[in-house]
């Protein structure tokens, strides 16, 4: 059903933008004319009752007319019972009748009828109906104070006269003044993150307002670019995740907490290793770039943060030592919220960097409360949740013998150790042995916070340790400190905000992900250790190790792998309000991510028979990323024709320096001195990275909010980046976003009384992508690397690319239309967005014949990549009683990626992908095993069966690897102190389903599916015969790139389960505690899938899958 909906939705693109504009104008007209009409509206009512209360009468009128009565209960206290009977009388007359003997009067205002005390009534009526133009009433000057539930003054709250034109904002002390307001008029007070409040003006003109925190998602504070808003008033598409969602998930990378929760953001974890070794792919609304990075822009407390760490060199797949994941160096418990910005309206202010979406991370701050200490202790374990079904020892040996029989050969004692040397009666479950362990997970967090009206502070500290599922003591440990201080001067005009996050990560993970070895190791492979605890090298008759690849898989534990990373993110914001409504603000940010690595390959980790020709080798790495940013801004807030105008003008000066070195040292005389580079006889520099990136921009934003009904947002940015040629560094970006809160229209309120909130959003704008690497336009000459003995003692240099001064950024034009609705007093919220993004100016290689010196040159090609899709988001409060609450939220997203135009000079593969998703893969069409020969067959381009298809003509199947749709279903239950929440994540996508480790028949273990192989002439099978002499290698290789190898890898995963029990207030009071709970959190608890391989999310058989993590914890606040 869903897909059907989608296909219809996609046709929307056919409607031109002009048509949208016409529609918008029509909507605006309807809603405006309605309002004019509403002033004179008095429907007919009927009533019959004997001695009933006024309230009953009003309720009956409300039911009949759909209008609402607004009054203070105390007004009705002394009223007499009513006996009356009308039939189809105008409401106004009916009211006059019932109120005639009371000291009460009424007036209409839109769809509301206000009941007021009689002696002010005539003026009030006049005032409202004739507005401020008529001065013939006893209007008063109103002064009031706006405070929150904790008594804190709320500066900048908007106060407006309902249905009038007067509007103002509170000052720094929460005080506001309005002149010439008719008594009895209603003031609306709104403040971000709080519920809207309506208060009546009395004759003394004093109005104090206490605001209540919004429990409604629509009114919660949402962090956006250079400011904040609420979902209700946002013209852009922003999704925010709160700390409570992050805390419930035992993850060390905060980005993983977003999985399944953000419509439009596809997030997947590539492996289950801790400590930055796990790489997380984040893609917001598809791939916008042909070849360049699709990473979103990350901003942490105003400081741009690298999405990748620089590579630091390794011997092989060294965990955490290759290009790592910088989000590991951020403590999830320090995070207050993560906002994901998706459309042009939200991202255009980031100019040339916002094309792939923006993720804004905000850390925690102290509040105006008494000092308190929050403590959270958590411990648990992680494990591989799913094992693959591999051949048993008997089945493995049978496979091998059958392979030899098929080949007409006998096992060779020189090579086939699994049959001739090893003990073929001994069987080991290598999955259990090598990746079957339990990873330890421990986490301790404490934070101390508090404050008063002038100063608020928070100091937090955490310790986190994770080990691996592999045998051996490999671990990653992190210690972190976080603080933030807010201070406001006595005048309330000068403010300072300071925050810093510092983390030290000690990564001592092993040198290898053992998963790869595990899966292919024959069941009869020897024991890992000898009886005396030394490595079992299982030497053959020549004394050389008989282990596959010549190495005992556990020998990696003798290697040293240390990577120490320090990460400091600091931010200061100083602001000064030099006159009412105008504030000058400067944000200063600094980030230093520094890592030092040391890897040692001692002889202890090597087969002794190789010592004579091997060398001891150490690597030393030193890398850092340093970035600083200064953003002075001027903000203006003021009234403009009955609405509030907020404007922002700012500039960004950013500098980012990446540098690093990797040294390789060899020729140590002993394993013991390998940490000392001076003990090496040969040292060579493997890598020297240096990249300076400078970025500068001027940006402006104007937002206009007309009475919470019409919203408009306009953004411009002129933007310069050092990544491009001197004449192409600057470009302009802009966006326009409009919103119409149609639920405020009387007509709609009448027609759909259950509709409590409705907004239509429309945005269009241009953003760019400058993630093409630094200096790529220059013809750089770099020193030759890896030269051990430089020519004539001098390091030669060489150019690696052509000079291309014309490079510019890639451009993404984003269009979005969104509908947001709330029903039943916002208990049910439903959002829908449709977007259509077009990326052009693609920076891609323009192919050149190699005889010009290079095979390609980077150019902006007029190729076009489109991403269009839809996102649905539904959240409901299903049950809400005093003691029980059940809420659900559901989101589903679909993105369609299409290469709609290719350009001359692009590689031929793109030609085949025209009109298709960019990462479609071309495959052979598998045609089963030849029943006569037992060998794989494929269909060629003419549909004939062949053994050896042609790579340029016969790859006829296009397979899409983009997720077709994905999303999540979150349920939360609260019963008294017990809370239960679970998140189901679902993804429909394709993956490799043919997890073979080599040609079945070779000395590798295989999944049990190979047992269905061809055996005798006439057998019909999809698995070719076993063979071990290499004659079937090519048909096996073709099979690997055929549709036989790929299939559905969709899954539904119980991503998160959290159960907590909060201790009752009574007990807590006695213990001087607050908010104390014990809890169980679990991640990746269960997966439902048909996917036969290791893990449908990571889609890898060489990497340890994302772990099932279960933790137990206790959380308390001490005051």
């Amino acid at each position, binding site marked *: 059903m869903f897909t059907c909906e989608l296909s219809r939705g996609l046709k929307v693109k056919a409607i031109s933008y002009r048509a949208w504009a016409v529609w918008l104008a029509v909507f605006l007209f309807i809603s405006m004319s309605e309002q004019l009409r509403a002033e004179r509206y008095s429907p007919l009512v009927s009533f019959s009752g004997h001695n009933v209360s006024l309230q009953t009468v009003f309720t009956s009128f409300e039911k009949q007319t759909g209008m609402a009565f607004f009054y203070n209960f105390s007004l009705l206290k002394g009223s007499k019972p009513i006996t009356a009977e009308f039939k189809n009388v105008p409401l106004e007359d009916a009211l006059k009748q019932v109120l005639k003997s009371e000291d009460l009067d009424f007036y209409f205002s839109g769809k509301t009828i206000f009941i007021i005390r009689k002696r002010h009534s005539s003026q009030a009526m006049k005032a409202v109906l004739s507005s401020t133009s008529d001065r013939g009433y006893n209007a008063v000057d109103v002064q009031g104070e706006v405070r929150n539930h904790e008594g804190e003054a709320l500066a900048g709250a908007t106060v407006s006269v309902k249905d009038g034109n007067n509007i103002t904002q509170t000052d720094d002390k929460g005080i506001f003044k309005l002149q010439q307001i008719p008594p009895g008029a209603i003031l609306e007070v709104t403040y971000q993150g709080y519920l809207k409040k309506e208060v009546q003006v009395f004759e003394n003109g004093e109005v104090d307002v206490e605001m209540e925190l919004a429990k409604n998602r629509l009114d919660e504070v949402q962090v956006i670019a250079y400011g904040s808003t609420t979902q209700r008033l946002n013209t852009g598409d922003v999704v925010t995740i709160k700390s409570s969602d992050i805390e419930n998930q035992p993850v060390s990378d905060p980005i993983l907490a977003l999985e399944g929760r953000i419509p439009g953001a596809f997030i997947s974890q590539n492996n289950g290793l801790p400590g930055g070794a796990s790489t997380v792919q984040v893609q917001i609304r598809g791939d916008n770039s042909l070849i360049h990075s699709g990473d979103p822009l990350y901003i942490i407390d105003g400081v741009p943060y690298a999405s990748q760490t620089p590579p630091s060199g390794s011997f092989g797949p060294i965990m955490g030592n290759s290009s790592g994941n910088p989000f590991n160096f951020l403590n999830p418990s320090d995070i207050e919220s993560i906002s994901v910005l998706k459309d042009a309206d939200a991202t255009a202010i980031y100019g040339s960097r916002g094309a792939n979406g923006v993720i804004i991370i905000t850390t925690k701050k102290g509040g105006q409360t008494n000092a308190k200490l929050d403590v959270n202790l958590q411990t648990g374990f992680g494990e591989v949740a799913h094992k693959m079904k591999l051949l048993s020892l008997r089945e493995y040996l049978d496979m091998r013998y059958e392979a030899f029989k098929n080949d007409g050969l006998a096992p060779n004692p020189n090579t086939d150790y699994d049959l001739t040397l090893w003990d073929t009666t001994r069987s080991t479950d290598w999955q259990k042995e090598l990746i079957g362990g339990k990873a330890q997970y421990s986490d301790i967090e404490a934070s101390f916070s508090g404050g008063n009206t002038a100063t608020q502070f928070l100091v937090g500290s955490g310790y986190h340790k994770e080990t691996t599922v592999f045998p051996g003591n490999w671990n990653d440990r992190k210690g972190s400190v976080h603080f933030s201080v807010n201070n406001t001067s006595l005048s309330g005009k000068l403010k300072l905000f300071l925050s810093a996050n510092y983390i030290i990560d000690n990564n001592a993970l092993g040198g290898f992900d053992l998963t790869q070895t595990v899966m292919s190791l024959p069941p009869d492979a020897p024991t890992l250790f000898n009886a005396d605890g030394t490595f079992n090298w299982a030497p053959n008759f020549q004394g050389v190790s008989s282990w596959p690849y010549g190495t005992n898989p556990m020998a990696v534990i003798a290697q040293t792998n240390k990577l120490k990373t320090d990460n400091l993110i600091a931010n200061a914001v100083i602001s000064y309000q030099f006159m009412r409504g105008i504030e000058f603000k400067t944000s200063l940010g600094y980030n230093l991510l520094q890592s030092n690595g040391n890897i040692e390959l001692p002889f202890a980790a090597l087969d002794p028979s190789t010592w004579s020709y091997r060398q001891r080798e150490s690597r030393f790495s030193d890398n850092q990323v340093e970035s600083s940013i200064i953003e002075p801004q001027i903000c203006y807030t003021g009234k403009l024709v009955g609405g509030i105008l907020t404007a922002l003008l700012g500039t960004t000066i950013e500098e980012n320096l990446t540098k690093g070195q990797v040294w390789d040292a060899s020729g140590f005389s002993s394993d013991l001195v390998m940490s000392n580079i001076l003990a090496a006889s040969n040292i060579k520099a493997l890598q020297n990275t240096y*990249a300076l990136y400078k970025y500068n921009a001027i940006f402006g934003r104007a937002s206009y909010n007309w009475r919470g009904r019409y919203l408009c947002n306009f953004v411009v940015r002129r933007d310069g980046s050092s990544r491009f040629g001197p004449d192409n560094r600057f470009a302009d970006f802009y966006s326009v976003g409009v919103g119409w809160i149609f639920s405020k229209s009387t007509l709609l309120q009448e027609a759909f009384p259950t509709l409590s909130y409705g907004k239509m959003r429309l945005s269009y704008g241009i953003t760019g992508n400058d993630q093409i690497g630094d200096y790529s336009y220059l013809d750089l000459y770099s020193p030759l690397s890896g030269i051990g*003995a430089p020519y004539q003692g001098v390091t030669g*240099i060489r150019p690696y690319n052509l000079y291309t001064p014309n490079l510019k950024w890639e451009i993404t034009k984003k269009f979005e239309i969104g509908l947001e609705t709330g029903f039943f007093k916002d208990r049910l919220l439903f959002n829908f967005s449709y977007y259509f993004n077009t990326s052009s100016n693609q920076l891609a290689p323009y192919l050149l014949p190699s005889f010009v010196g290079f095979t390609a040159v980077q150019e902006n090609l007029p190729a076009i990549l489109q991403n269009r899709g839809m996102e649905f988001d539904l959240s409901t409060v299903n049950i809400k009683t005093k003691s029980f609450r059940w809420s659900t939220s559901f989101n589903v997203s679909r993105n369609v990626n299409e290469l709609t135009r290719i350009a001359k000079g692009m590689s031929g593969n793109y030609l085949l992908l025209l009109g298709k998703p960019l990462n479609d893969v071309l495959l052979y069409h598998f045609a089963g095993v030849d029943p006569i020969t037992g060998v794989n067959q494929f269909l060629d381009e003419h549909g004939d069966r062949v053994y050896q298809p042609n790579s340029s003509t016969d790859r006829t199947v296009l397979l899409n690897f983009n997720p077709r749709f994905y999303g999540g279903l979150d349920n939360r239950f609260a019963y008294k102190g017990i809370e239960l929440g679970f998140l189901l994540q679902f993804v429909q996508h394709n993956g490799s389903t043919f997890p073979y480790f080599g040609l079945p028949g070779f000395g590798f273990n295989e999944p049990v599916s190979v047992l269905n192989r061809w055996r005798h002439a006439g057998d019909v099978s999809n698995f070719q015969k076993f063979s071990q002499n290499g004659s079937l290698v090519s048909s096996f290789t073709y099979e690997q790139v055929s549709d036989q190898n790929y299939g559905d890898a969709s899954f539904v995963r119980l991503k998160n389960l959290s159960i907590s029990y909060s201790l009752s207030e009574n007990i807590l009071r006695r213990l001087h505690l607050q908010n104390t709970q014990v809890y169980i959190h679990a991640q990746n608890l269960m997966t439902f899938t048909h996917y036969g391989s290791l893990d449908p999310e990571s889609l890898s058989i060489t990497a340890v899958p994302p772990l099932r993590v279960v933790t137990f914890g206790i959380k308390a606040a001490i005051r």
Partner: protein
Amino acid sequence: MAAILQLACKKLVQVPPPGTQLTSDNVYATNATATSVLTGIYTVLPASSMQIGSTIDAISLVSALSADELILDGGAANGNALLVQFYRNALTPGLATASSSTIWSDIYSDIYIANVAIERLGISTGLTFAVRQQLTGEAKFLRAFFYFYLLNLYGNVPLVTKSNYAGNAFAPVASAGLVYNQIISDLSDAQKLLTDNYVGPDALSSTSERVRPNRWAAKALLSRVYLYTKNWDSAKILSSEVIGNTGLYGLTVLNGAFLKNSREAIWQLQPVNAGWNTEDARLFILPASGPTTNSAIGYPVYLSNELLSSFESGDQRKAHWVDSVIVSNSVYYYSYKYKSASINAPITEYVMVLRLAEQYLIRAEAEANEGGSKINSAIADLDTIRARAGLPNYSGGNDLVSLSAAILHERQVELFTEWGHRWLDLKRTNGINKAMGMAEGYKGIAWRPEWQYYPIPLYDITEDPNLVQNQGY
């Protein structure tokens, strides 16, 4: 105001080139960096593992495989698919991983560097005059050296002498004459620009290291080019000049010829892989276990019977430049010109590119072709080479046919497994079809004359519509 803003902004996004790298603007501004570019070319020539067969130094391997000098262990079943193609002369132009295309693109990327160097050195003002002369000479020498091999391996090649990639991208195939003219012009210039002595890494100071080309290297290569273009007189004059420089050059004992900076060396390449002497030694010298078909282990080749049987009895070159291992009663002979193949042995050998013995043979061939009174001096040159190998003087006929055959034979046993001499000689003397016909049996192929030229990479044909593929592919 806007203009000021604009200017200010421009400054804020200006970054200098990275401290770790240079650009073509500043690289030719100083002696040291400009010299390092050419040093970079010399560095990559001997840097790669030869058996990968992708770089120019692999010519010694792949041409010898294409000709009749080497046997590929396991033949068609060898794990190294690329070498199988060269060995069986059946090159596929299309496959990027298994074709002649990498040598082609490798050479052309060095030509690009030489082209930029020649252009930039011509307008550079920051360099010492002598350094500029020397470097321009080296760049021209290298460009000629590269085109000589391109032309002789591929037959038809586009002639690219400018760095402008947009202009070059549609170049057609140039005629052999045109390419030879460019080679001769470059070498003639190089002859004038380069110094008499060998220079150090500063391209200025004199050194005993014969690892950068000097004037004599330019003359030696030019004499070879004249020989190939049958300009006998010029070939003779130039080789005589080199042979006449007895202060620098002279024939050594056989075991001394390939040592570093030997008197026989006119131009050598210094090994750059730490702990190792030449890559040739690492590839050719077989371990006790013999050759192997496993592509991961680097001993895929041994000498052919065609080569071994062409040594006359008593030829000391067979004793000193050939060695063998015995594995399961089979004897495998290997090229033993370079002898040091163990790690961390002292560096005693450099890769020989141009050496004096070839100059004697060039002069002999030029004089033989000039005929008449020159026949005797031709025989004398031939005998000089034979004498060093412990062989008696030439006793064959004085006619051109006999003498040419003797010189060709002498080149075969003198220059085997060196820089494709045998493969190129067979082609320029029209002996290729006969020789390869005899190799058909052990190679398991049916020789086709078109195979004497490698195919132009399909990639280049696709990207440049003006290129035409060689016949037979």
